[in-house]
C-alpha cells in the first residue's frame, strides 16, 4: 500500500511535514519558509530552571506542534489530530489512514530512530515525520530533514511513536482533513497575521527570558558561567547553545536564515519594499549568530579560556538582541 506522495527535503522537520502535507492536499503555493513564517516559527527562550542533557534549555523556535497548527488555521484548513493511550489503537488508526491513501504526520522520539546516526540520537521527543505507506510489514517514511525517503519496521515505528520523557508523543498523528485550494489572498492575509504574531512573541512578550529580552538574558548569564560553573561545565553549556542553534533541523543561524527567506517570499504576495530590507536584517542576525558560534567554539575547543572571551561571547548576544529588536520593531510598523 503506497500513497502517491512527493518527498521534499526541508531544513526543519515540522516545517517540512507541514509543507509536504499541505502540498499533498493541493496547496501549491506552500514552501518551507512560508510555513515557518505563517506559523510564526521564529522564537528565542532560555528556561533557567530546566536542564536538558545536563545543559541549559534554550530554544530558537516556537513550541513543537504550533507551526503546523497555526499555518493550517491561518489558511482555514481543518486538521485531524489524535493521540493514543494504547499502542494497538495507534497502529490500527495509522493503518486505516494509510489504507485510505492518507499520508500522516507523526510526532516521534529521536532516541530509537534507527536511521539516524548514533551521535544524533538523544532523548528528544519533538521530531516529526510523515508516514505515507506500508510495504512488506514496513512503513514508508518521509523524514523531511533527510535527502531521501526511508522506512521503519512496525516495531521501530511503534517505539518512536511511544517514546517517553518530556513532550512524549503518545502516538500523536496529525494531518489536514480534506483537499483544499488556497487563494493568494488567503496567503497574504496569513503572512500578515504570522508576522504580527511573531512581532508579539519576540518584542512584546512579558518577562526577561523569552524573545529579544531572552537573548540579552542569555548574554548576561554567559558572562557569569565561567566563575559560577567552572570552565569545564561552561564549555559544555556553550556547546549546547551552539547545537540548539546550528544542528540539523535549524537551517543554520538559529532559524534566522529561514525567516529571512520567508520575508523575501512574503514580498511576492505583498509587494512592500520594507519586507526585503528587513529580510537583510535577519540575514545579518543569522550571520552574527554564526560568528558567535565560532567564538563559542574557540572556548569549548580550549583555544580560548579567559573571562574576557566569555565577555566577547556575551557581547555578540547583546548585539544580536539589539539587531533583532530593530528588525521586529520595523516589521511592527509596516502599514499593510
Amino acid at each position: 500500500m503506497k500513497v502517491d506522495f512527493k518527498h521534499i527535503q526541508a531544513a526543519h522537520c515540522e516545517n517540512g511535514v507541514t509543507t509536504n502535507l499541505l502540498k499533498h492536499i493541493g496547496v501549491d503555493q506552500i514552501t518551507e519558509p512560508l510555513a515557518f513564517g505563517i506559523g510564526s516559527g521564529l522564537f528565542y527562550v532560555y528556561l533557567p530552571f530546566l536542564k536538558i542533557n545536563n545543559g541549559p534549555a534554550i530554544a530558537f523556535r516556537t513550541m513543537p506542534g504550533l507551526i503546523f497548527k497555526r499555518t493550517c488555521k491561518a489558511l482555514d484548513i481543518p486538521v485531524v489530530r489524535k493521540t493514543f493511550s494504547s499502542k494497538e489503537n495507534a497502529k490500527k488508526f495509522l493503518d486505516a489512514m494509510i489504507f485510505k491513501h492518507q499520508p500522516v504526520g507523526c510526532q516521534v522520539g529521536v532516541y530509537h530512530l534507527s536511521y539516524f546516526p548514533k551521535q544524533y540520537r538523544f532523548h528528544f521527543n519533538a521530531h516529526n515525520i510523515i508516514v505515507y505507506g506500508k510495504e512488506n510489514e514496513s512503513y514508508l517514511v518521509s523524514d523531511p530533514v533527510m535527502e531521501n525517503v526511508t522506512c521503519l519496521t512496525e516495531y521501530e515505528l511503534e517505539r518512536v511513536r511511544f517514546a517517553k520523557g518530556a513532550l512524549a508523543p503518545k502516538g500523536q498523528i496529525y494531518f489536514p482533513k480534506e483537499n483544499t485550494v488556497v487563494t493568494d489572498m488567503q496567503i497574504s492575509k496569513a503572512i500578515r497575521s504570522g508576522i504580527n504574531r511573531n512581532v508579539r512573541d519576540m518584542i512584546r512578550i512579558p518577562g526577561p527570558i523569552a524573545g529579544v529580552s531572552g537573548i540579552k538574558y542569555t548574554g548576561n548569564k554567559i558572562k557569569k558561567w565561567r566563575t559560577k560553573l567552572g570552565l569545564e561545565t561552561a564549555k559544555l553549556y556553550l556547546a549546547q547553545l551552539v547545537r540548539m542553534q546550528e544542528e540539523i533541523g535549524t537551517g543554520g543561524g538559529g532559524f534566522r536564515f529561514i525567516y529571512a527567506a520567508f520575508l523575501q517570499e512574503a514580498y511576492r504576495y505583498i509587494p512592500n519594499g520594507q519586507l526585503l530590507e528587513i529580510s537583510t536584517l535577519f540575514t545579518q542576525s543569522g550571520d552574527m549568530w554564526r560568528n558567535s558560534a565560532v567564538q563559542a567554539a574557540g572556548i569549548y575547543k580550549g583555544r580560548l579560556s579567559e573571562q574576557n572571551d566569555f565577555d566577547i561571547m556575551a557581547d555578540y548576544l547583546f548585539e544580536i538582541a539589539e539587531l533583532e529588536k530593530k528588525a521586529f520593531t520595523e516589521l511592527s510598523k509596516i502599514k499593510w
Partner: protein
Amino acid sequence: MKKTDVPQHKSSLNNVTKELCYAVDETGSYTKNLSTGWDIKASALNVAWKDIENRIAHAKEKVLKGEASPVLFYMELKLMDFSILSSYTGFFKWTIKRHLKPTVFNKLSHKKLKLYADAFDINMDELKDIRFNGEDTK
C-alpha cells in the same frame, strides 16, 4: 550567509544525509543549498559526547566499587536522567534515587527489576551485573 559560504565539512551525518540550508546567491535572493556539515557544530557535538563518555566511565567505576547500583550506569549509558527514567519505568524520581543504593537495589523484586531491564533495553543478567554489558566499550 552567502551561498558560497555554506560549509562543506566532515560530520557524522556524512554517509546518511546532507542537510538543507538557506543562503543568498549573488543577487541577494535566498536559495536552498545542501551542506555536508560544519566543523564548529561537529566539535560542539563532540564536546557533548565526551561529557557523556566521562559520565558513563565515572558511573561504571562507582558501580564496580559498590558505591552505586547498576541503575546509575545504565541511566548514563542510555543518556537518561531521572525524569526520563521515571517516565519509562513508572517509578517516582525519589524511588529511583533510592534504587541507586546497592543495598536497596539488591533487594528489589523480579517485577521491579524487569521494569528497569525493559526501560534500558537489556536482559536481567546485564542489569544485575554491568560486566555482562559491553556496549560502552564499543
